[in-house]
């Protein structure tokens, strides 16, 4: 019976498709999240590889050296940037920095000047964040023994205070230590065993990442609802429960099989979900040292158990699965008792919301802290339970949270299972009812009789074909991207931007003079540096004197790359009369549809369009409604045209949000200055007439892109109709339009 229960779910194509889709979404979201991280994942992988062949002492030396080196290089960069500013304040700050870090500048200047100093990251800023992160982790590990001593010390102090209090004659606590003392002693005892534990240092980023899979939990909850829905509600809806209850196998046996299948299904779904994330991060970050003690992972240092990283991961997954089972059992019980699916969703979401409120409103150190831990939301946060050791006051006895929560979960699952089985066996009415609309909505519906065909078609697209959900998710994603967008510009780019702002507008005599003067200045600096070097070689000046003179010039030379770009623009303007100085990066970003970020967004827009448009002209054929619709006058003559207009409108709304996102990124990151300047001011657009302002080209570009989307909309509708089946249409359209784009994006 269990096997047949399992087959019901795992042989369902719709469930498998949804599962695959959600798993892919989950990994996709992890990829997106990784792209937003300052430190690239490859850095951790390369760093761990470097440490692999080293002893712990060698690792310490290496990390110390690496940290100092990166800090030194950052100091040089900082000084250079400040020197370029040429203000009094910056000069003062430079002096202060140099006096605080004596010799550092001289040590790392040559290396900074030569470049090629980056080891794990692509920019010095990233490298600094990475070095800081690694250094902090290492320091934490180094001080592990102190941390343990501190815990024991705290227990001793608590104990001393208690003895002192008892001596004072506190009758209530006489003979029995207070909870605080007992808790401190228990904590000390728990950590006592961890002394002399051998710690092996690596970044262990894999362990950190698999514990912070925020989206995975949401996907998992969605999947739980789907699993319970598919396993029970569908059967209830079809009236199969009533038939099954009459079978000779027995109701209890049937219910037990269902509960066992639910356990298996939820465990498998959880394992697939966390497994896919773990596998993804293993591919990105490399395999961690599973045999090392868990205290080697900086983030898990306070874990009080004598376990390895591998055991910790298993324990982590087990706790999560137990939490998942508890939640699934609750949904199952509601499903057995309730007569509508709505109650399952309401209870599930309600329990989570209550859990979140209890978790955040009640502090773990507060009096009623048991409520902080005794809720479904807290059960899902396995890391808190495993790492943050805390004793709860259970009738004056200190019991650790992990034990309490484990017992709670097991008891909860047991109660839910027994109650569900009892209810299943005793309950006779397993039919479902429909939730009827409130009377005012019914009245509204009655008044809503109209003859606007486009409104009916719009309702069909948004509600019946679920286009509304797709559009909503797309819009949310666009808004999310806008909110979380943080532009990053290299120092050279910033310098170029400042210079372009200084020179903005048409080329005037003054600007030309200034530019040529600046050019001359740079030439003189280069000449002076060469001469200083020759003088040092000849022995006329010492090395230190050469350094100090060069330092003076080099700060100015930091502006050279930016000036060279500016000078190129100047030459370009000379060749193209009418062109102006315009900082063009924002426009390049705007027009750069094949740039990876935009390309991904545009592909996403295409995917949403395909999934939304495919059913419009195929679903009616699938459900046999085409014959009926085509037997009417407007159904044959106008409906398809109206469907195109409605689809076009919806695609336009999505495109507007897409544009809003792109424009926001271009404006907030780089700016779109001087939009009324001739388009020929932007390099690469010299073939356009010089009287055409940039804004017109931008507008034309937007219109052209919109027109392309409209053509694509028409094509997708036509193609889907030709294919005749929604799923086939989606697959073929993905193959034609999306996969080449993905391949292009990946190969870039």
């Amino acid at each position, binding site marked *: 019976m269990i096997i047949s229960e399992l087959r019901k779910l795992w042989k369902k194509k719709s469930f498998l498709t949804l599962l695959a889709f959600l798993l892919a979404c989950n990994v996709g979201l992890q990829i997106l999240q990784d792209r937003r991280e300052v430190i690239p994942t490859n850095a951790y992988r390369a760093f761990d590889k470097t440490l692999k062949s080293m002893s712990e002492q060698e690792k310490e030396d290496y990390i110390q050296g690496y940290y100092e080196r990166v800090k030194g290089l950052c100091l040089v960069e900082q000084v250079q940037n400040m020197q370029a500013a040429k203000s009094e304040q910056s000069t003062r700050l430079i002096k202060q920095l140099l006096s605080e870090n004596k010799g550092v500048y001289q040590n790392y200047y040559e290396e900074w000047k030569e470049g090629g100093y980056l080891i794990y990251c692509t920019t010095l800023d990233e490298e600094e964040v990475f070095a800081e992160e690694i250094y902090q982790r290492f320091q934490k590990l180094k001080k592990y023994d102190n941390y343990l001593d501190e815990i024991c010390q705290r227990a001793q102090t608590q104990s001393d205070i208690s003895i002192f209090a008892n001596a004072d004659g506190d009758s209530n606590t006489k003979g029995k230590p207070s909870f605080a003392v007992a808790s401190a002693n228990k904590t000390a005892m728990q950590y006592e065993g961890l002394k002399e534990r051998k710690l092996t240092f690596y970044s262990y980023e894999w362990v950190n990442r698999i514990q912070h899979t925020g989206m995975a939990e949401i996907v998992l909850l969605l999947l739980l609802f789907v699993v319970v829905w598919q396993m029970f509600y569908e059967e209830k809806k079809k009236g199969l429960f009533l038939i099954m209850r009459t079978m000779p196998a027995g109701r209890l046996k049937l219910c037990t099989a269902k509960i066992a299948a639910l356990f298996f299904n939820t465990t498998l779904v959880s394992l697939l979900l966390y497994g896919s994330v773990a596998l993804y991060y293993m591919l990105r970050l490399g395999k961690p040292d599973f045999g090392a003690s868990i205290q080697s992972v900086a983030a898990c240092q306070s874990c009080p158990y004598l376990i390895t990283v591998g055991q910790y991961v298993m324990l982590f997954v087990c706790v999560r699965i137990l939490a998942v089972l508890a939640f699934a059992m609750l949904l199952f019980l509601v499903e057995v008792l309730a007569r509508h699916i709505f109650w399952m969703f309401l209870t599930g979401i309600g329990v989570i919301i209550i859990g979140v409120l209890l978790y955040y409103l009640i502090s773990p150190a507060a009096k009623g802290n048991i409520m902080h831990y005794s809720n479904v939301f807290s059960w899902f946060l396995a890391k808190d339970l495993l790492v943050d050791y805390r004793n709860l006051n259970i009738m004056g006895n200190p019991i650790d949270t992990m034990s309490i929560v484990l017992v709670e979960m097991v008891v909860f699952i047991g109660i839910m299972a027994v109650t569900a089985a009892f209810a299943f066996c005793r309950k006779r009415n397993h039919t479902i009812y429909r939730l009827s609309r409130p009377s005012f909505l019914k009245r509204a519906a009655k008044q809503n009789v109209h003859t606007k*065909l486009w409104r009916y078609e719009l309702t069909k697209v948004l509600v019946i074909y679920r286009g509304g959900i797709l559009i909503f998710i797309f819009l949310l994603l666009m808004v999310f991207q806008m909110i979380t967008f943080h532009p990053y510009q290299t120092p050279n780019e910033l310098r170029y931007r400042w210079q372009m702002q200084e020179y903005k507008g048409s080329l005037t005599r003054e600007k030309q003079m200034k530019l040529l003067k600046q050019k001359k200045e740079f030439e003189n600096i280069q000449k002076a540096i060469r001469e200083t070097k020759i003088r040092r070689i000849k022995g006329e000046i010492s090395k230190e004197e050469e350094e100090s003179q060069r330092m003076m010039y080099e700060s100015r030379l930091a502006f050279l790359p930016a000036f060279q770009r500016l000078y190129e623009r100047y030459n370009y303007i000379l060749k193209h009369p009418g062109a102006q100085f315009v900082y063009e990066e924002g426009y390049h970003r705007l027009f750069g549809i094949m740039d990876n970020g935009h390309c991904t967004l545009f592909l996403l827009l295409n995917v949403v369009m395909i999934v939304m448009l495919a059913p419009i002209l195929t679903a009616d054929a699938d459900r*046999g*409604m085409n014959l*009926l619709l085509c037997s009417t006058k407007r159904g*044959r003559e106008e409906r398809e045209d109206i469907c195109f207009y409605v689809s076009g409108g919806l695609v336009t709304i999505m495109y507007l949000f897409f544009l809003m996102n792109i424009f926001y990124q271009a404006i907030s990151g780089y700016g779109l200055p001087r939009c009324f300047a001739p388009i020929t001011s932007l390099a690469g657009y010299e073939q356009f007439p010089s009287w055409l302002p940039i804004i017109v080209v931008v507008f034309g570009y937007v219109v052209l892109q919109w027109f392309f989307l409209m053509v694509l909309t028409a094509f997708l509708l036509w193609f889907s109709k030709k294919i005749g089946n929604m799923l086939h249409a989606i697959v073929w359209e993905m193959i034609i339009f999306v996969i080449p784009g993905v391949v292009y994006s990946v190969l870039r």
Partner: protein
Amino acid sequence: MLEIIKLTKSYGTKVALKGVSLNLTPGLYGLLGPNGAGKSTLLQLITDNLVPDSGRVLWNGRNIIKANRKYRKCLGYAPQQQGLYDTFTGQQFLAYMGTLKEIPQKELEEQIEWAAQCVNLTKELPLKIRGYSGGMKQRLLVAQAIMGNPKLIVLDEPTAGLDPKERVRLRQVLKELSKEKIILVATHVVSDVESVAKEIIIVKEGTIVAVDKAENLVETYAPGKSLEEVYMQLFSQEYVTEDRR
């Protein structure tokens, strides 16, 4: 008047209709025949959802393909399938069909009420279709077919899933409507059309084997017996063959 002249339709090598000819004037016609006899194909040709290999369908003397727009205004059709839009209410669905039929806004509400009353669905109109039973969906399809005062109503298995009370009620409604309209009802259930049909059309393997009043058919094929016996007699060979299988 609807004239069907030598209609032929094949699906690959299988011939579904072989030179079928018919003349229909106002009244109710029962189209009887076993599964695969060609009933649905004939209805789809009449509703212009299929193009014949040869032959013509004339509406008031004009080929329906040429009189496309005018013909559609006169047509009401209820197909066999029931893949309706679950999230629409019955009223929304009827309003949508009314819009497709170009019923003016002023008349639409009235028409919906009338059609719903005819099929006894007035109370259920504000409910979503997903809550409808099979019989209710069937009645909703019939309701949309009779909306807009069509001159020709084509119904494919309209009584499937209806309880006896609703079956009788629908029969009476169709009988009433057939005074001014041509109503063609394709069905397996002989009793649905026996008492109300002006003529019974019996289709067998793509050809019309008999067109006559019910009583005449009984007299010709099974005197003193019912139309059901006539049907059984006409298709007895098939039953024997099916039994042997």
